């Protein structure tokens, strides 16, 4: 299981806010960094992988833990 370098808590936020949060934060971090986005809006499950595809970033996977669903994204460039 991937250990994230940083966690963005977007619980309670409706899409597109979780996607905007990762789009803002990821470019500030070194290439290779994994960010975990906690998001309880069901649209995040669709939109975070779609954002990764559109932006050429890596969608590592979905993790369901005690904090609810989370989405891991790795900066590729």
């Amino acid at each position, binding site marked *: 299981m991937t250990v994230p370098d940083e966690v963005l808590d977007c619980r309670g936020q409706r*899409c597109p806010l979780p996607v905007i949060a990762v789009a803002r934060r990821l470019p500030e971090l070194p290439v290779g960094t994994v960010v975990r986005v906690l998001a309880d809006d069901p649209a995040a*499950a669709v*939109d975070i992988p779609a954002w990764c595809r*559109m932006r050429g970033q890596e969608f590592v996977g979905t993790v369901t833990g005690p904090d609810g669903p989370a989405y891991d994204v790795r900066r590729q460039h």
Partner: protein
Amino acid sequence: MSVSLVYLDAATAAPLHPVARQALLAALEDGWADPGKLYTQARRARQLLDAARAATAETLGVRPDELSFTASGTAAAHAAVLGGLAGRRRAGRTLVHSAIEHSAVLHAAERHVADGGTATSVPVDRLGGLDPQAWAAAVGAPGVALAALIAASHEVGTLQPVAQAAAACADAGVPLYVDAAQAVGRVPVPAGWSVLTASAHKWGGPAGVGVLVVRKGTRWESPYPADEREAGRTPGALNLPAVVAAAASLRAVAAEAAAETARLTPLVDLIRARVAAQVPDVEVVGDPQSRLPHLVTFSCLYVDGEALLHALDRRGFAVSSGSSCTSSTLRPSHVLEAMGVLSHGNVRISLHRETSTADVERFLAELPGIVAELRAEAGVVGL
């Protein structure tokens, strides 16, 4: 300052066709009696109903006794699914359906599962096309009572491989139900199905009229308490003037369909190309070639779908959206989800016989500015 209104949501409800309006007014005059009774007024109503059924059956290429009118497209879809399953309960209790069926079909499937049945959802690809191998495997499994496939996606316009799916069903001995709501009156529906439904307000008829066709030899059993009307397939008195108007409208749009396809297909191509070129960070979804002639869908990154709908409405544009914030359930469209495409900032445009090139040009001229304004307000420019 008032803006001129441009209606771009025909996939929800097309504007009433002028022929439907005429037929409706005429039928209100002499189509109000119960067609099942034995007096002069009833015979007149019966004649109108028989003529409407004959005309609709002819357009769909089926026998009149195979066709029943229903109280809506949704009611027809519910009856198709539940009746198709009931008629084949001895063969099995599994419903196979694509992941992108209309919610009316999926809700009927949920009812079936709640009653102890099972449902198998077959995936689609990124363009919204059915996976034919997965479909063949699913319908070939033991215990399948019915398979359901939408003829063309109501959300992204992708035409489904109905002929191929029907062949797989025939090999497995499973009847196929086709939801043709977006196809009827616009594009031909391939043969091979056993049950078909459609909805009049999608083709310029009035709301409140659906069509349910059950081909001869299909094992279908009404899911409703007994009622002798409409060959025992639809309970209750029909709204006969609306049925007459729906039939008249279908005949008219079927006659215009080839010309409308030739006119609307390039307009949709224009929207697909210009939106992709002029709106940054937009994903135009659905199959660019194998698609309905009148429907196009795209998603704008970082834009709230509800805000986009309201902004477009303020400029006079009526459109639909599959974004979660625009649905009562706060869930994204299951169609966009199944395709794995961006679900926020989503807009569905669907054209109709009154849509002009000028309407489309105005939309295309205003959209980039509207999206840019929303992104500036949200502080997401340059992300």
